[in-house]
């Protein structure tokens, strides 16, 4: 494992039995797991290259139990890692040997649906798809649709600011969340926002979303729901070069069209997908675009025509527009199966997640091919083309000596390149442990210290999910630079950490 986690605290390890007993007094019955076999399912999340059994697992059934567990852990200096459905691709829910793993899966009820104000109130363990399923009979849906939506939890979506193929038009989790209840590590329960559009005060909701379990534990969310678009149509467009496909993307947006989704695949990804699901993808192209338009039927038809024209001008060598729902779904079938399809080409693959300015796409893909030759590892690319979010899939074999390390080095080179061309390390998967040590590529020490000071305002003892996101752990006291003016602090009543 290339990433080094903070060394476990021996005194916590020694208190394991005592901690289990104390937590059993809060969550009775089978809500506390401390036997080796029981812990195994929790030892990794979606980033399976990293594994670590937790100290123990606690599965509370009520927000009050969450609060009591955190309060106890805070008082006794025990670290806590929160976990939703465990689908994080960046190791956000990777356990620590000396931390309690707090699973939210039993908080799985939808508490309220309000069609007049168009919102759903749900507990964090409800799956993303279940939110949509609860309202679809009335013609509504919840817009963010990460590919893991049948499994991933809405609380985990908040922690990771999850997106999905439709976030180009409808936004990420952060743009669809109205309010939440969070429990601080002290056990204190705070409600932020609610059923109105703009909550008062500082935008704490804005920083809780995407905070990767470092600031608090979400015990309730209020999300907005939207009326389902009347119809959707998709175009499947093949190009002889990535440049031509990129030009089509740029000109579509320049024409004032924000598609519901705009996905690109390169030749290796197209071939793998076609071999896997026979979606009818053209095999003589270098790049394939799927452009989805949604809205009233006349709008879809109008925009399909516009995109067809743009695509032809950009040099499309194959072009199909879906005429019915089954054809639209078929267009998507290959893209949706792209990861498992690529997975058939090699024993293992490593999925990256950088974002770049769209104009840099041809250059970045050229560089990826150079890296691929250098590391002697194949790469296939799927790409949320509309918002510049790249998912290179690096193929390797973990059983071959040194290949995992090579794949990781390749991945790091890709992410450095993303930052160099004006992009970022992660567009939607999160930093977690995976990209933690690359944070200095994007941020200076001052930048990172400012972020950690914010964490200290929520978690002064650094007990929540330590070892994630930040490459260097600071004690809060080190970060505070105190100025004493005229012999006194400006706010002597405030804790300084």
């Amino acid at each position, binding site marked *: 494992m290339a990433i080094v986690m903070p060394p476990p605290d021996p005194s916590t390890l020694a208190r394991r039995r005592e901690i289990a007993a104390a937590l059993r007094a809060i969550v009775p019955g089978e809500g506390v797991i401390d036997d080796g076999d029981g812990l195994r399912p929790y030892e990794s999340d979606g980033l399976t290259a990293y594994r670590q059994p937790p100290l123990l697992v606690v599965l509370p059934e009520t927000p009050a139990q969450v609060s009591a567990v955190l309060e106890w852990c805070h008082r006794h200096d025990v670290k806590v890692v929160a976990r939703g459905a465990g689908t994080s691709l960046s190791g956000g829910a990777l356990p620590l040997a000396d931390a309690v793993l707090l699973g939210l899966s039993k908080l799985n009820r939808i508490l309220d649906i*309000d*069609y*007049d*104000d168009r919102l759903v109130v749900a507990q964090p363990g409800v799956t993303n798809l279940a939110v949509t399923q609860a309202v679809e009979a009335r*013609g509504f849906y919840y817009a963010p649709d990460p590919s893991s939506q049948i499994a991933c939890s809405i609380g985990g979506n908040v922690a990771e600011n999850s997106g999905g193929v439709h976030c180009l038009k409808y*936004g*990420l989790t952060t743009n669809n969340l109205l309010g939440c209840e969070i429990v601080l590590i002290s056990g*204190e*329960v705070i*409600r932020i926002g*609610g*059923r*109105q*559009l*703009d*909550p*008062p005060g*500082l*935008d704490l909701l*804005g*920083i809780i*979303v*995407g905070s990767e379990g470092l600031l608090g534990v979400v015990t309730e969310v209020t999300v907005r729901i939207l*009326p*389902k678009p*009347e119809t959707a149509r998709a175009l499947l467009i093949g190009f002889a070069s990535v440049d031509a496909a990129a030009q089509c993307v*740029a000109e579509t*947006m*320049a*024409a*004032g*069209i*924000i598609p519901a989704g705009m996905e690109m695949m390169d030749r290796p990804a197209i071939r793998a997908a076609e071999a896997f699901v026979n979606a009818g993808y053209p095999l003589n192209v270098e790049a394939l675009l799927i452009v989805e338009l949604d*809205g*009233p039927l*006349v*709008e879809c038809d109008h925009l399909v025509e516009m995109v067809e024209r743009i695509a032809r001008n950009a040099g499309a060598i194959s072009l199909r527009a879906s005429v019915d729902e089954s054809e639209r779904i078929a267009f998507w079938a290959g893209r949706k199966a792209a990861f498992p399809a690529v997975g058939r080409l090699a024993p293992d693959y490593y999925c990256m997640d950088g*974002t770049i*300015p*769209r*104009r840099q796409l041809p250059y970045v893909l050229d560089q990826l091919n150079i890296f691929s030759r250098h590391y002697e590892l194949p790469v296939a690319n799927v790409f*949320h083309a509309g*918002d*510049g979010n790249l998912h290179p899939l690096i193929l390797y074999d973990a059983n071959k000596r040194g290949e995992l390390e090579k794949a990781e080095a390749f991945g790091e080179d890709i992410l450095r390149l993303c930052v160099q061309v*004006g*992009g*970022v*390390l992660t567009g*939607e998967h*999160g930093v977690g442990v995976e990209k933690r040590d690359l944070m200095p590529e*994007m941020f*200076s020490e001052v*930048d990172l210290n*400012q*972020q950690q000071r914010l964490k200290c*305002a929520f978690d002064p003892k650094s007990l929540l999910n330590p070892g994630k996101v930040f490459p260097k752990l600071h004690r809060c006291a080190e970060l505070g630079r105190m*100025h004493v*003016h005229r012999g006194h602090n*400006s706010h002597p009543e*405030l804790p300084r950490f």
Partner: protein
Amino acid sequence: MQPRFYPSCEREIIEIVSNALCSGDRLTIAGGGSKQQIGRSVDCSLISLGHLNGVMDHDPAELVLTARPGTPLKEIEALIAGERQMLAFEPYDHAPIFGGVPGTATIGGIFAAAVAGSRRLTAGRARDHLLGVRAISGQGELFISGAKVVKNVTGFDLPKLLAGSWGRLGIITELTMKLLPRPETTATCLVMGLDPSAAIGAMAKAMGSQADVSCAAYRPSSAKQTAICAFRVEGFAPSVESRCGKLHALLAGHGEIVRAGQREADAFWGDMRSLASLPISSPLWRVNLPPSNAPSFLHDVAAEPGQYLMDWAGGLIWLATPCPAECVRAAAGRRGGHAMLIRADVGTRRDVDAFHPQPPGLAALEERVRRAFDPDSIFETGRF
């Protein structure tokens, strides 16, 4: 007279902040000054960011723009209008409601106060369009957060926190914002003669439909005019036609529906911005609440027609009322919302906090967050 600073680069700002840290001075930050009459009037050093201006980067194909905070909003709007683009949240210019000339607001002020207009209902808040910042903290340290791409989850999302912080966390020195294509066609449909409850019902129905309305607002009846519930429909021409048709069918039972002419539509949406129809003799409140609670709130504060306007399908009420502040705030709180005091005489502003008070736990957390950026409270001027 307290000192005024007009820095034109980040180093000068760092020096001003460092000096304030030594001397114990407090700093208030201004852009174009269009919101200066919100909150208590304070007597402290002022940093005006008007000289830190200019668009630094605008690549129309990327739908992203980077500017310094002192850039006038109207300059940015003119520049991007030329590319048929817009700031979709409809930046809200406060100058007219204080009797000022529209267009003095700066982009830094717009985001620092996170103020959005009618399209906020569907396009999101100002913060949803702020992608990245450079800023100087209360420790005099320059930090960056966010980036120049639309999809990014790398580290805490500090741009969101800085948006709407009213200059209490740091001094923003550069902003990168998301642009969207300007709609090709816009139509406004009016439903005439509804009372506020019926208007809320009509707006909820429209928002829950496939008419894909971008703005929904209500102006109660006056001596001269009947009540108007207005829906703005935007997009490509065939789609706008189709959706206006849907809206007609949907609301046929609610009242007389007409398509507004250009001038009538401009006047209505202009009134939602200037609030010119509200009396200037009473304190002006901006009340956010769940839309379905709007009628009961209006009843609680005994709002007369002519004293209020509703935007955001009823989720935003502009209220000019002689009711005491406690009464407005208690009613807003009871109905799941909050009330910000926007315009009032100096005495009222001295006695009444501009921001709705928060529950103690949340207020304490906000305080800790502010101290994480400004440990010596140099941006705590007493204005809020």
